[in-house]
């Protein structure tokens, strides 16, 4: 059965080390960190990845005041993607446009702030904001994009922990395949670095990265890693059916040829290597390609002891006998952008289709022997003869796994 072909025609992003694809890509190649110290409420200074984009480039101050940081990130990314796509959006039927964004969580930032204010106001609930509900409903970041761009088609977020970025992209593709929409904004966003609760919970779990030098704090696969650096960010793609993109002569970044998602069903937080392998295998099967044809695998690699070891084993199991498959990771540069991570990390690798460079990881100074693998790009960029296929992994709590495969078009 032939499948509807879906392509990426625009990219908008904000990361701790870049506010567009070119800046982000350069930072990855040059190993420019986006991690700084942040004063976390009640906790003191911790390394975190914060984005420095212009919130009012596409949004009025009042809309920003009413909405959320995640919504603001989404509006910036969606507008940047739209500009990049060069589509005549005025002429597009807005009822046939959809917005599908992966999130790890949403509402912690707003709830924490309201409770903080409640305590400042002697627990007077009469001063609780009427904005609390529209800010914290889980569709909020996607709905803010629809409000901003006057899109009347569907919008929703896909709650999928740290697999969110991949899952948003997959859902966008599926909505196009189903014929529910003709143009999709799809990806992931996160405002999690603005909370204290997520920092405190990772600290309690023994999984929050600490380092006197914030740029050294996120060090996946390194022997001396000590946890996750929490970051905010966003990456939204414009997706179209191949024939629609061709008809309007759109620039095509790549084709979503395969994807898969499954569940460990074994633990709330600990990963499961076997299910991760299954997920990658299913994505390859859907893409109808051999594992040998994958040129780059981007690991989820968060910098936790267990997470990196389990995923390294999964990637070795899959690709150890593949001479031409190279492996990299992104969180050393930008920390863990949570719901945005999958979409951002994929974007960081897409320029490889043209420049054939595999960007390196960062802070991999002493390889953890349990993470060691062939063709891991941890030090400096590697130039390949060609890059045609990228596999992007994103995994999350409650055992959610996702893999996306993009092919050069």
């Amino acid at each position, binding site marked *: 059965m032939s499948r509807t072909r879906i392509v990426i025609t625009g990219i908008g992003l904000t990361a701790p080390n870049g506010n567009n694809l070119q800046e982000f890509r350069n930072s990855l190649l040059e190993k420019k960190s986006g991690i700084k110290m942040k004063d976390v409420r009640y906790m003191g200074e911790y390394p975190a990845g914060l984005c420095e984009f212009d919130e009012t480039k596409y949004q*009025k101050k*009042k809309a920003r*005041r*009413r909405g959320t940081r995640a919504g603001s990130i989404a509006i910036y990314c969606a507008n940047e993607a739209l500009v990049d796509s060069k589509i005549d959006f005025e002429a597009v039927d807005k009822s046939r446009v959809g917005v599908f964004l992966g999130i790890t969580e949403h509402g912690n930032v707003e709830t924490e702030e309201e409770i903080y204010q409640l305590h400042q*106001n002697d627990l007077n609930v009469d*001063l609780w*904001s*009427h*904005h609390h509900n529209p800010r914290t409903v889980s569709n909020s970041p996607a709905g803010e994009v629809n409000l901003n761009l006057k899109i009347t088609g569907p919008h929703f977020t896909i709650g999928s922990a740290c697999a969110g970025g991949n899952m948003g992209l997959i859902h966008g593709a599926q909505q196009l395949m189903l014929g529910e929409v003709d143009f999709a904004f799809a990806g992931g966003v996160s405002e999690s670095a603005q909370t204290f609760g997520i920092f405190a919970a990772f600290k309690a779990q023994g999984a929050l990265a600490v380092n006197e030098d914030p740029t050294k704090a996120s060090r996946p696969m390194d022997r001396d890693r000590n946890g996750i650096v929490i970051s905010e960010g966003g990456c939204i793609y414009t997706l179209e059916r191949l024939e629609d993109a061709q008809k309007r002569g759109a620039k095509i970044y790549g084709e979503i040829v395969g994807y898969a998602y499954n569940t460990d069903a074994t633990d709330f937080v600990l990963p499961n290597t076997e299910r991760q392998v299954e997920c990658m295998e299913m994505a390859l099967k859907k893409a109808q390609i051999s594992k040998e044809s994958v040129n780059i695998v981007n690991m989820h690699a968060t910098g936790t002891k267990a997470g990196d070891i389990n995923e390294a084993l999964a990637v070795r199991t899959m690709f150890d006998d593949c001479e031409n498959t190279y492996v990299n990771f992104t969180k050393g540069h930008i920390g863990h952008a949570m719901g945005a991570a999958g979409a951002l990390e994929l974007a960081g690798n897409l320029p490889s289709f043209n420049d054939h460079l595999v960007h390196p990881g960062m802070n991999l100074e002493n390889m953890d022997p349990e993470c060691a693998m062939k063709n891991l790009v941890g030090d400096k960029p590697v130039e390949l003869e060609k890059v045609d296929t990228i596999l992007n992994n994103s995994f999350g709590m409650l055992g959610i796994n996702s893999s996306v495969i993009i092919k050069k078009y």
Partner: protein
Amino acid sequence: MTAEEVKQVVLDIISDVAPDEEVSDINSAESLRDQLDLDSMDFLDIVMELRKRHSVEVPSEDYPRLATLDSCVEYLTPKM
């Protein structure tokens, strides 16, 4: 507070609630909603800020008293 001080309080709150608007051009006798991009959520914000900053309660039946800058001053001055 004097009427002039109450007027400034209201203008300060409107500036915060509607940061894209230029409040210095407001005609005090004309409807605020006709001059500014204010909706019902903004009026709830104004009421909330009066409660927070000045402990002034504005019951919902009195919301029409906040229609113009002049009517705001007339209504709020005895309360502040």
